[in-house]
């Protein structure tokens, strides 16, 4: 995996809006953002309404994804061009999720919606419809998903990467500060986790830093290349951003995203928790 395979620029996206075989897909934290204007031809997928199971506290299953992609007009051979707001948080989550169900051709627009807007490129409110397909997904690839027991078992043995802000890591905040403080029952972090905020991997315009800068970032923070890794945040979207950096840009092996993240871990009974500032 490399940047050339998985990341495209806004220039490239602009030049390929009408290229056959590409399906532009917007996934935002603010699920109303698409409705106010989107890339020409892009379809909307809501992480909350489309990717989450309506009853079970989990994402949709294989059949659910097949139904969604079929309705959205996405074929197995299409290249999905993903982008979204908030520095691509939920676009990265969708990238991870679509990869988990075996879609092979996906690229992320570097900087996402934010970079597109800062570039002054056009947005449209036109309704986008695509002919339905019959999509067949693969079985879930759990080699890129960590569960709570995996995370507990990883203490002291794997790279545990807490990508939240230092305030959340230390237990001073229960959630990102743009949200009401929706908390797990306890604050803090998984013992032994290293705090490498997702934001350190990105420039102010939402684009990813260079491979050299990213490599130095993780090495300096104590990332051990000889170990398997689990990234977590609060609900799994920021850690998807870091999973993308580690797996898809830097080509690190055996990296899992713990999408249950702190909202689950911090509510478990009896698991160990640490408080305190990140190590300098």
């Amino acid at each position: 995996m490399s940047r050339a395979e998985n990341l495209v620029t806004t220039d490239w996206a602009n030049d390929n809006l009408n290229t056959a075989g590409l399906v532009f897909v917007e996934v935002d934290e603010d699920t109303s953002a698409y409705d106010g204007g989107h890339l020409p031809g892009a379809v909307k997928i809501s992480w909350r309404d489309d990717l989450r199971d309506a009853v079970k506290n989990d994402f949709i299953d294989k059949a659910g994804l097949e139904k969604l992609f079929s309705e959205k007009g996405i074929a197995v051979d299409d290249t999905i061009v993903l982008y979204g707001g908030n520095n691509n948080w939920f676009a990265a989550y969708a990238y991870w999720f679509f990869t988990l169900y075996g879609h092979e051709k996906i690229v992320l627009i570097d900087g996402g919606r934010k970079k597109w807007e800062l570039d002054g490129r056009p947005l449209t409110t036109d309704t986008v419809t695509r002919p339905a397909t019959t999509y067949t997904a693969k079985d879930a690839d759990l080699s890129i998903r960590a569960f709570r027991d995996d995370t507990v078992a990883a203490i002291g043995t794997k790279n545990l990467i807490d990508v939240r802000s230092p305030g959340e890591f230390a237990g001073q905040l229960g959630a990102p500060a743009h949200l009401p403080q929706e908390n797990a029952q306890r604050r803090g972090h998984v013992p032994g986790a290293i705090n490498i905020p997702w934001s350190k991997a990105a420039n102010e315009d939402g684009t990813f830093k260079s491979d050299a800068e990213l490599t130095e970032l993780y090495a300096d923070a104590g990332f051990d290349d000889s170990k398997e890794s689990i990234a977590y945040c609060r609900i799994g979207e920021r850690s998807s951003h870091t999973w993308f950096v580690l797996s898809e840009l830097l080509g690190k092996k055996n990296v899992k995203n713990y999408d249950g993240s702190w909202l689950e871990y911090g509510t478990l009974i009896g698991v160990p928790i640490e408080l305190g500032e990140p190590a300098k």
Partner: protein
Amino acid sequence: MCAAPEQTLDLPPGTDTVTQAVIQGRVLAGAEPVAGAHVRLLDGTGEFTAEVVASPEGSFRFYAGPGSWTVRALSRGGSGQSDVATRYGVYSVDVLVGA
């Protein structure tokens, strides 16, 4: 679950201002609001804490705690930032952006 809240200067009913610091204000270019600016909250070390997109009125809001904070706005028209020191309660901070 996580969902982007509406950016207004009217505090939502029931907002806790006793155990948190609410930092809110508007992004302005001169006297004019800057809609759609990307507004981020940085902690006392300059580290990213959160980001929102300003409303059509240029409004933004964060929920933080006691500390030293920087509110930084990025827009097509330029960037700007303001500092604020908080304990608990509501703090109003406008950010001026320019070329």
